[in-house]
């Protein structure tokens, strides 16, 4: 606190007090967080850490998980000395090496991500405080949630109790983001490892920002509060009642969308207008009203707008296609921009009357408007949609089958569409077939297409290639009808108490979180398949963001989505949709709470010890199968610093580097034994911190492997190994070649696999290893508390 407060220069001075008998009691000046007096946990060593405070911890991790750089360009073009050629060990004009340059880009990316969440949090908080006051209590769980803000408590050492208390937390984030961003300036940091440490710092800040955003909106907007059985919401294009006026909301900041729901509620016409969404605003609006519908992740933007179904489009911030105004105009849907961050060159109509704006839209005299007032957005959107829907008649830019054939014939087979496609989809081939009347190839592509539209830009014949796919697959889009559990928010302390033991002891083989964007190598389906597999295997499966949608877009043989098949509780075999991007904080929060609530490690401003606990004991793994954005990079970095490995899809190699352990280097895997103080070999667990898998199968096997931790009991390790070996056998074939590295004693061997594995161990010079009380922090030796 001292840090933060002295930074604020708070002074109370009473210059003159004309009273001898006046007594003051309980004068409190609340500048956000000055309520510490009511929190009796002593302050830990690192509240409000700055750029180098946790450097030692980072360096310890980075010694194990050395960056494997995958330069995305041979050049640097960040200043006008450049471009600089960094091939062949050359240095840039500023002296930088390729390794440092790549990590510098990672830092820049993580800064953008952290700024985006923090900026979002700030706007949200400011608007909620305007509306509800800064004294509105934080309440993220009516029952069972005492640790309301585990990350904030851990990082900042403060316990926020009201919305106002969150403000200095964001001050801190903004301050650190500014410092971190400045590090990317030409001629600052020169060491790639120190850049990486700063990436971790940016990730940690990002998680603080996300936590603030989500606990603020949960508290103020009545989102589900840590409810395991939060309601199900409709998911998919096929769930929209196209006979009604339809509003589409896209983005991440729920405020304007909430304005729409508020207006509908106030007018009592909720059943008359469909509110549908794409990206995280979709998720958050279902948390506000479960009548709202989720269309799909970011990759659904083009197809849904072009379908003509949405009568009015409301965009806020982040992951909104920048061509939305153009696409909206093509189908004559007016567009309302609602964020200062995304003005699209539109006239600012905030101060105009609703009547005027609606008239402009209805008369089609303006294609869009910027309205920086959520309430006004609500009224304008609803009134416009209702007036315009009958006129528009949902006229989309859809292509008929006949038209499709005609267009396909214009294709010259130049291959440029395929060469522009991020997934290298065989478009030319499929279009050739379509020209001959065979649509099945094109139809198949629907599932793999991420809807980026690059094929269309590239086409020399100006063919609407993406639309051709949609046209071929129109049956599929129409029947896209699924459901999703609305984001529940945090995990209850009571849930943590229940699963803490089973997780740390290994009865529950692990926590697997499917998070992030939709830049999938093969469409959405694989996310659903992975979720189902791990839930069946009794892992705790978490979902969030675009991945939470993808998880729901698949049915099992009984017609159930994972959300119908499994419970929403944080328990073995649960599918826990925490919510939108910013809700990812609750996944990290759950890991932290296992250390703090279950294991009773001191939380307050005590980052290293908690991270050390999570890293060595909590078998959590993040999977960002379609990670695309700068935010995804920042979220991953926040997990890394906590010692939680992240697996990404093959596109993830474009993030400039992996953080990979070397299981063959025995010397890398020693830990301190907190009991004896000695250094003990604990095996390559978890083997990697950031890993890009080539295929879904690759990913699943790796996830199972990465849940192992040095602290696993034999029973726990056996359980984890059973899953690892079984998945490997099924998906790859044979016993995993590294299984001997994970068996510490015969008791670790899964019972059902005893013979196989024992044989294998014999062939591999295996010898028994002790199971330590593991830590990377010398200061924790003999200070064991669990």
């Amino acid at each position, binding site marked *: 606190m001292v840090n933060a407060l002295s930074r604020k220069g708070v002074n109370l001075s009473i210059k003159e007090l004309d009273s001898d008998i006046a007594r003051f009691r309980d004068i409190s000046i609340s500048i956000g967080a000055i309520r510490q007096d009511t929190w009796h946990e002593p302050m830990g060593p690192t509240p409000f850490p700055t750029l180098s405070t946790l450097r030692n911890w980072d360096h310890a991790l980075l010694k194990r998980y050395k960056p494997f750089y995958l330069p995305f360009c041979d050049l640097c073009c960040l200043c006008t000395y450049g471009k600089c050629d960094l091939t062949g060990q050359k240095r840039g004009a500023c002296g930088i090496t390729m390794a440092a340059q790549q990590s510098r880009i990672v830092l820049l990316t993580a800064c953008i991500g952290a700024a985006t969440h923090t900026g979002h949090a700030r706007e949200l908080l400011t608007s909620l405080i305007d509306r509800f006051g800064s004294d509105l209590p934080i309440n993220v769980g009516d029952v069972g949630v005492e640790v309301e803000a585990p990350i904030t408590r851990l990082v900042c050492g403060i316990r926020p109790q009201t919305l106002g208390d969150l403000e200095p937390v964001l001050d801190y984030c903004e301050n650190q983001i500014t410092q971190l961003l400045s590090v990317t300036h030409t001629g600052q940091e020169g060491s790639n490892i120190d850049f990486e440490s700063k990436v971790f710092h940016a990730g940690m800040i990002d998680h603080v920002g996300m936590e603030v955003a989500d606990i603020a909106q949960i508290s103020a907007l009545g989102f589900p509060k840590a409810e395991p059985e939060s309601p199900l919401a409709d998911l998919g294009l096929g769930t929209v009642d196209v006979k009604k006026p339809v509003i589409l909301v896209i983005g991440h900041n729920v405020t304007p969308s909430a304005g729409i729901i508020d207006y509908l509620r106030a007018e009592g016409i909720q059943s008359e207008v469909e509110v549908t969404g794409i990206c995280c605003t979709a998720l958050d609006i279902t948390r506000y009203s479960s009548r709202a519908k989720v269309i799909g992740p970011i990759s659904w933007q083009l197809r849904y707008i072009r379908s003509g179904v949405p009568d009015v489009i409301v965009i806020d911030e982040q992951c909104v296609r920048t061509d939305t105004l153009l696409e909206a105009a093509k189908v004559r849907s007016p567009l309302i921009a609602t964020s200062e961050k995304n003005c699209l060159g539109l006239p600012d109509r905030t101060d105009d009357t609703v009547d005027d704006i609606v008239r402009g839209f209805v008369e089609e005299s303006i294609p869009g408007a910027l309205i920086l007032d959520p309430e006004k957005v609500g009224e304008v959107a609803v009134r416009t949609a209702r007036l315009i829907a009958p006129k528009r008649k949902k006229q989309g830019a859809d292509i008929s089958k006949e038209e499709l054939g005609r267009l396909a014939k214009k294709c010259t087979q130049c291959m440029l569409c395929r060469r522009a496609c991020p997934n290298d989809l065989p478009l030319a081939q499929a279009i050739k077939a379509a020209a001959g009347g065979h649509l099945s190839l094109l139809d198949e592509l629907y599932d793999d297409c991420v809807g980026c539209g690059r094929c269309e830009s590239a086409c020399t014949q100006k063919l609407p290639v993406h639309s051709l796919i949609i046209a071929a697959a129109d049956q599929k889009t129409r029947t896209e009808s699924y459901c999703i559990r609305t984001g529940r928010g945090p995990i209850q302390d009571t849930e943590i108490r229940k699963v803490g033991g089973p997780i740390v002891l290994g009865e529950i083989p692990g926590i697997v979180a499917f998070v992030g964007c939709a830049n999938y190598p093969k469409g959405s389906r694989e996310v659903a398949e992975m979720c189902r597999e791990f839930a069946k295997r009794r892992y705790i499966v978490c979902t969030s963001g675009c991945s939470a949608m993808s998880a729901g877009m698949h049915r099992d043989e009984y017609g159930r989505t994972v959300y119908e098949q499994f419970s929403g509780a944080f328990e073995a075999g649960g599918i826990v949709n925490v919510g939108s991007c910013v809700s990812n904080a609750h996944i990290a929060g759950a890991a932290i709470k296992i250390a703090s609530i279950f294991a009773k490690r001191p939380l307050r401003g005590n980052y290293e010890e908690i991270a050390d606990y999570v890293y060595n004991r909590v078998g959590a793994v993040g999977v960002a199968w379609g990670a695309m954005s700068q935010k995804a990079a920042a979220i991953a970095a926040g997990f890394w610093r906590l010692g939680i490995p992240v697996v990404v899809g093959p596109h993830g*190699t474009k993030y400039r580097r992996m953080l*990979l352990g070397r299981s063959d280097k025995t010397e890398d895997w020693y830990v301190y034994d907190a009991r004896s103080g000695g250094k003990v070999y604990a095996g390559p667990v978890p083997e990697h911190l950031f890993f890009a898998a*080539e295929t879904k*199968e690759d990913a699943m096997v790796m996830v199972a492997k990465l849940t192992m931790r040095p602290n696993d009991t034999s029973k726990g390790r056996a359980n984890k190994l059973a899953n690892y070996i079984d998945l490997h056998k099924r998906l790859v074939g044979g016993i995993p070649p590294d299984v001997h590295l994970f068996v510490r004693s015969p008791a670790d061997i899964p019972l059902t696999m005893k013979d196989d594995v024992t044989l294998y161990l014999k062939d591999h010079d295996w010898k028994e290893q002790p199971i330590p009380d593991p830590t990377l922090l010398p200061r924790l030796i003999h200070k064991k508390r669990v």
Partner: protein
Amino acid sequence: MPLNESWQTAEIPGPKKASLIIKPDIADAMIRRAKRPIMIVGHGIVEYDVEGLKLIDYLIEFATKAHIPVVVTASTNREFLNRGFTPAALMPAVDIGNRLTDPGWKGFDGKDAYDLAIFVGLPYYMEWTILSGLKHFAPNLKTMTLDCVYQPNASWSFPNSTIKDWVVNLKGIVDGLGD
């Protein structure tokens, strides 16, 4: 089709670009010259039907003739096993990439560092990034790809080719090795 443009149009690295394997004997010469070659095979190979034969069968013949150990990166393993071929190692693509940047790594047999890595069958962009990693951080390693598309970050790559031309090339290489 342009011969030595990146197959994915935008995936352009910079000044350092792969030499073209215009004729199979170039590849053969490289392979012969290598003291410690290794082949890394991604999951894409099962998708290629090359004139009735699966690419994987070519590769098995290739590896066997040239005595090149094969690392299989993913679930393709099963396809090899089904054909009675046991890869020298199973290892994810980024892992083998990472090890190849370590001059101290003595290979799967513990004997010596590899000096030639032959890639085939990874997703184009992933092979691109891993080859970039090796181009920059494994200065002593040469890399080659056997895919039918140009990979600028390799030391040597085939040009972008039709499946037909590619098959001719591949056959040529395998035949050349048989001498």
